[in-house]
């Protein structure tokens, strides 16, 4: 009886979702939560496009001959796969969706520091994305996502300039988001919420924003210089025009190595939240985990030359870059060990977000450890530009970044929508993603060491068995990715009502209602304790009281 009345009261209360139903109320919204959902919707589409390209790649590679499509088409397909996935899915993925949605909630504030800038960044992103879709429709690009000149500047007859302009514009959206987050974290924390009381998700986003703001301008300049060389024949990179092709590689990787951390650090932030809340334990070594994000962000700027060990850069430069790369591996190791230690003596839940978190630890360990192979100078000479590299960065980007994103999406789904996803399906799909992923990418380590170069449309027959395994895994992986789309969409209408704190999690975002009201909190939160203090969680206390009552009864 009482619960029914409460449910009705909840129903009638307006939340950020019911506050305006028109298209205009979405497209002109300044609410960070709605902007997060706008991003979520957009990047899901771009992920699907990138995924279709991935499927085409895997289908082509079933046989050694290039028989499904021409070499020219294949080159465009793998390029667009990389471009869509990196610039339009992975880089915005967690910060622009979960970050946008959660940061003000976690800080106990109404919105980000610059709500209008936040909306602008989505529009800038969409302009860049639409330009990229136009690029695709006018033939696409065949240079690889790395755009190495002089091929990209002089020789390629695909839409390089248009793609460059698109990436240039999209970069600004990333800069604006980073800037907004940094200012928000600095100035908008609720009373009592000191830096070392912040959830680790916030620390991760602070580190990520730093990279976005400092790194993205460099890639913007680089693609602009490329466009100038291509359209105006200004010699910057092509030796025939008096330029230096290796200069481009330096500039490109100065951003693109740290960009790897733009993709992975937010995911690490998510994992810290998931493990703490799913085990009801404070994250082991909070300060180490927090500062390791910053260390990765800062040192990540000093390792770009590890992409150029065979590029004719000097041997001693190679040694310096190799050494610093090993130094930057340590903060990642520290995080992994701390997460594992957090589970120790915890109260471990087996729900979907935890399964994703554990999958992350396993896959990211392999991804990170194989990075040690590639940072090893004498071994990288053989491995560079082979499928070993492809396998390695998919372990980090998919096994790390995307797994973290999916785990976070499941964990905060009830907060975002007010509904639970079906738990059984969540667990099944997480298991399928894990198996499919390993079957897709583990064989690529082997075929890479055997010598299979990346970006090959056709290959020598002795590699076929590994490609067949990989394609089989990719089919499974596709199922694992499609399932959440279906059941999450289903849950919007039919999912069980979530309640404010279905996980009994600690964290300010769980103290407000699900979905939260437009202004996030109906009161001003004041914080007087650290993050992850589970004895403060009302729902756990109630459950404990109920259990005690049952026992005495």
């Amino acid at each position, binding site marked *: 009886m009482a619960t029914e009345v409460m449910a009705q009261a909840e129903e009638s209360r307006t939340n950020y979702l019911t506050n305006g139903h028109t298209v205009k109320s979405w497209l002109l919204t300044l609410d960070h939560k709605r902007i997060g959902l706008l991003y979520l919707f957009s990047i899901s589409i771009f992920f699907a496009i990138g995924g279709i390209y991935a499927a085409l790649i895997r289908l082509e590679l079933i046989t050694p001959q290039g028989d499904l499509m021409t070499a020219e088409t294949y080159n465009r397909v793998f390029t667009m796969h990389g471009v869509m996935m990196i610039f339009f899915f992975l880089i915005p993925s967690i910060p622009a969706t979960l970050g946008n949605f959660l940061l003000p909630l976690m800080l106990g504030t109404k919105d980000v520091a610059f709500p209008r800038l936040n909306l602008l960044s989505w529009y800038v992103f969409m302009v860049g994305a639409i330009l990229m879709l136009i690029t695709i429709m006018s033939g696409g690009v065949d240079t690889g996502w790395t755009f190495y000149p002089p091929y990209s500047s002089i020789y390629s007859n695909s839409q390089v300039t248009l793609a460059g302009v698109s990436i240039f514009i999209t970069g600004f959206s990333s800069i604006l988001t980073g800037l907004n987050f940094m200012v928000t974290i600095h100035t908008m924390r609720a009373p009592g919420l000191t830096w070392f009381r912040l959830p680790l998700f916030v620390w991760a986003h602070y580190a990520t924003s730093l990279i976005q703001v400092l790194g993205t301008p460099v890639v913007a300049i680089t693609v602009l210089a490329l466009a100038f060389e291509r359209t105006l024949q200004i010699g910057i990179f092509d030796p025939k025009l008096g330029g230096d092709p290796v200069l481009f590689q330096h500039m490109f990787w100065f951003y693109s190595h740290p960009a790897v951390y733009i993709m992975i650090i937010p995911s690490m932030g998510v994992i810290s939240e998931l493990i703490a809340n799913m085990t009801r334990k404070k994250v082991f070594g909070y300060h180490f985990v927090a500062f390791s994000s910053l260390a990765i962000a800062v040192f990540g700027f000093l390792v770009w030359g590890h992409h150029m060990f065979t590029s004719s850069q000097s041997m001693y430069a190679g040694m310096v870059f190799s050494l610093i790369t090993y130094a930057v591996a340590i903060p990642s190791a520290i995080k992994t*060990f701390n997460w594992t230690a957090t589970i120790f003596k915890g*109260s471990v839940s087996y729900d979907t977000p935890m399964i994703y978190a554990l999958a992350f630890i396993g896959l990211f360990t392999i991804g990170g450890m194989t990075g040690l192979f590639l*940072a*090893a100078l004498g071994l990288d000479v053989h491995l560079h*530009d082979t499928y070993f590299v492809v396998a390695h960065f998919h372990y980090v980007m998919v096994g790390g970044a995307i797994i973290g994103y999916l785990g976070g999406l499941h964990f905060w789904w009830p907060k975002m929508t007010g509904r639970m996803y079906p738990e059984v399906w969540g667990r099944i799909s997480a298991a399928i993603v894990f198996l499919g992923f390993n079957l897709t990418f583990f064989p690529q380590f082997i075929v890479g*060491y055997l*010598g299979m170069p990346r970006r090959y449309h056709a290959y020598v027959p002795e590699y076929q068995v590994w490609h067949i395994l990989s394609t089989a895994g990719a089919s499974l992986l596709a199922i694992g990715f499609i399932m959440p789309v279906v059941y999450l969409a289903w849950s919007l209408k039919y999912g069980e009502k979530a309640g404010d704190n279905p996980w009994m999690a600690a964290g300010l975002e769980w103290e407000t209602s699900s979905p939260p009201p437009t202004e996030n909190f109906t009161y001003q939160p004041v914080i007087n304790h650290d993050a992850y203090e589970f004895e403060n969680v009302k729902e756990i206390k109630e459950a404990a009281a109920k259990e005690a009552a049952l026992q005495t009864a």
Partner: protein
Amino acid sequence: MSLFSFQIPFMPEQASKFALEVDLFYIALWLITIGVTIGIVIAIFVFMVKYKRRHNGEIPDQIEGHMMLEILWSVIPFIICIGIFAWGAKIYYQMYSEPKESLEIFVTGKQWMWRAQHPDGQREINTLHVPVGRRVKLTMTSEDVLHAYFIPAFRTKTDVVPGRYTTTWFEATKPGTYHIFCAEYCGTQHSGMIGTVTAMEPGEYQAWLGGGTNEPPAIVGERLFSSLACNTCHTADGKGRGPKLTELYGKQVKLNNGSSVTFDDTYIRESILDPAAKVVENYQVIMPSFRGQISEEQIGQVIAYLKSIGPKDGDAAAKPAATAAAKPAAAKPAPAATK
């Protein structure tokens, strides 16, 4: 391929001196990786089972952290990493240091083929014939975009960059035929830019060299040197309008800006294409650029000629006589092919 072709290989054939070293390193890294991963996975499984949530109101005892553990799991991985770094750097140092006494082959990459020119004049496309048991150094450049010369069986790879020379070297240990792949994406037929390297016993290699009717690059270079009229200024008596180039290869040259530069492949190439870039002291910038009139392969031949008239150290280098026909020069035995 081996007789046991049903056996699934995890490594390419080991056909060079580097191969075994690289493989041992690779296996060691997998052992570390598997060890660490299994350790973490076991820990997770044990914790999962042992600390499964038993009731809904459960709050476990909190652990803030542990300073000693943090130090241990930072310092131990760091030490292991330094070890890996040193091991990798050692192999890299060998791979990218100039080999002593080697057979030098000139390679040009071009969309989408590999051309190789042997010092004795043999030329080949998309194949490379090398003797086993002898260091072979490839000096490479590209006529268009970036490529990379990758021989998995030798564990060597180096980018081939337009506008500059890069080098790679190896010593084949096992006769056989192995793949050459272009590893740096270079456009439409990138995956077709492949070929084979054939490692042969030194005797067979000599026989193979004698099989063609090609002239040594130094001879062709000498002809180019006069047909492009280089010799009208760069006279042998040193009184021409350009500096004398005999006895010069490998020596230091003073420039008009006070600095100096080694008269090597890179400087020669640059001076042919961009004569004004580094002008020799006391000379004027009167030389025209030969950009567009001379191919990368021809530049390599001019370099071979200038090298052949360079300073002779001890053993007489194969200096072709001006009137020498192709055959006798090609038949001249290469420097002792002992290990």
